[in-house]
């Protein structure tokens, strides 16, 4: 089983500042993390490899500064890492991002199984996995919390839906989006750390990718951010009190009765 896990490096949301006049996000000095749900996807891939054998490649798209995050994924257990890095990839929306990642997967020889997190924490759309599946003409299973290979070439996935839990079987190759929090991600293996630091990370640029230039980055992105604005906050009373628990409880009880939701 050859698996590719797509990892996104995202800014810590609480550290991003917005410049409303320039309508830009100020990311300088902001620390980043691997998108949490993508770590659940990595753990799923490692568990599949532990059970059925095979190889796990982590794949990301971004600047060379993302390399240390890929080394973390190797230290956790991935066999190798690939970074798609080129200015031509910048400014991509879901269409161009899914295209670039799909091209990257093909450039490294394809995959039986592609795993992604179900959504990214930085205002992500949770639409990239489905897009990759379409570009690769592969089966898909989204919002998955459990995965197994019951027979050769068949993937069984459990999806959590609003009205129930669905278990599907699809033929490989397939793309799966793994629910954030679906599993407990193993710790970094410190015996692997030195190896991860030394590991060579393959960097693929637009030329090597051999992709259709018009489908990459900004030119390949049909959606455009036309404006940023402050979230319209409803007028709130903003009464903030520091009170002893007993006094606070009495005050809250009074308020809830006034609002007509507590028995009087």
């Amino acid at each position, binding site marked *: 089983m050859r698996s590719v896990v797509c990892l996104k490096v995202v800014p810590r949301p609480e550290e991003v500042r917005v410049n409303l006049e320039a309508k830009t996000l100020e990311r300088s000095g902001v620390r980043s993390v691997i998108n949490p749900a993508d770590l659940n996807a990595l753990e799923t891939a490692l568990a599949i490899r532990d059970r059925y054998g095979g190889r796990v490649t982590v794949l990301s798209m971004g600047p060379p500064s993302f390399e240390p995050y890929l080394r973390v994924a190797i230290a956790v257990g991935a066999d190798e890492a690939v970074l798609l890095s080129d200015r031509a990839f910048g400014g991509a929306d*879901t269409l161009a991002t899914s295209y670039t990642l799909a091209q990257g997967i093909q450039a490294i020889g394809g995959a039986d199984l592609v795993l992604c997190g179900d959504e990214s924490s930085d205002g992500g759309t949770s639409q990239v996995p489905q897009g990759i599946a379409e*570009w690769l003409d592969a089966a898909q299973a989204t919002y998955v919390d459990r995965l197994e290979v019951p027979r050769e070439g068949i993937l069984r996935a459990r999806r959590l*839906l609003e009205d129930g839990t669905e278990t599907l*079987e699809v033929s490989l190759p397939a793309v799966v989006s793994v629910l954030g929090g679906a599993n407990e991600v193993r710790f970094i293996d410190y015996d692997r750390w030195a190896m991860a630091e030394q590991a060579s990370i393959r960097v693929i640029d637009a030329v090597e990718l051999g992709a259709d230039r018009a489908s990459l980055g900004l030119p390949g992105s049909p959606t455009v951010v036309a404006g940023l604005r402050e979230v319209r906050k409803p007028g709130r009373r903003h009464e903030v009190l520091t*009170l002893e628990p007993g006094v*606070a409880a009495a005050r809250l009880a009074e308020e809830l009765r006034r609002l007509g939701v*507590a028995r009087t």
Partner: protein
Amino acid sequence: MTAPGAVWVYAERHGDSFPPVSLEILGHARSVADALGTKLVALTVGADGAPARSLARYGADEVVTVEHPLLERYDTKLFTDLLESELRPADPSVLLLGATRNGQDLAGRLAVRLRTGLTAHVTSLEVDREKHLVGWVPGFGGGIEAGVVCPNRRPAIVTVRPGVFPTPEPRGSSTAVRVVRPTLDETSFGSRRVAFEPKGFSVDLTRSEVLVVGGRGTDGDFGRLQRLAHCIGGEVGATRVATDSGWVERERMIGQTGVVTRPKVAVILGASGAVQFTVGIEKAGFVIAVNRDPDAPIFEAADLGIVGDLGPIVDKLVEALGEA
């Protein structure tokens, strides 16, 4: 056949009924179609046609129902193929879907099939001066939202969060229904369903009038929240941290990745107030927040804030409400 450029709404079905979001977006899409000066078409896919006829009373100019006995369940490949074959000849300007799990499963695949743009999880819709649909997406870390347009390709595909638009009332008059009967067999499916366990009970927080919501600061003690909710006739909701920690079911998640609620009263306990969460309570009538940290941003989103330890406060509050 409706002229090109119409607004289409995909009304997802759960068996014979429509989840609320299907009707919410259909109700709101009427004003979008009017602003764009075009027709409104509702599209639904299922095993039989009766639900489609009920859909015809929610303001669309045309209802298209794709029917076949095998269409009892959603399948990515099959539904993508079916929608593609309806949408390509019709050439709509906009396609709206509910941001449910299967709605997003379909939207993401269909957008690439049609090589068009997709705006996900919008919480409001506007039509700008150039007659482009603007979908507003909250997030980006700091109390802002981005307006996204898809000016040069169509349809502009947009998924809308459940609960952001009110449920419309059915009207007396009903629209013409066009029935499409595709030829299908088992090979039309991309997946095989080997099991389905319906939820034994289901909670829909978008319908709750009173909510008691817990975050990280509850340390997982949702029994305490349940007691308070019981006292004031409310349902329990949670932040993403709380559902990801397994403290409470995922369907109780409120916010950008959960549901947008509009209760009369929301009591928020131990949630810091990240914008990804507060977007889910901003339509609440009255917001009460309890948090240990006086600088927590949740107080910016609250009518009444109490700085203190939620454990003893909630216990005494339950006591006070129980006594009366």
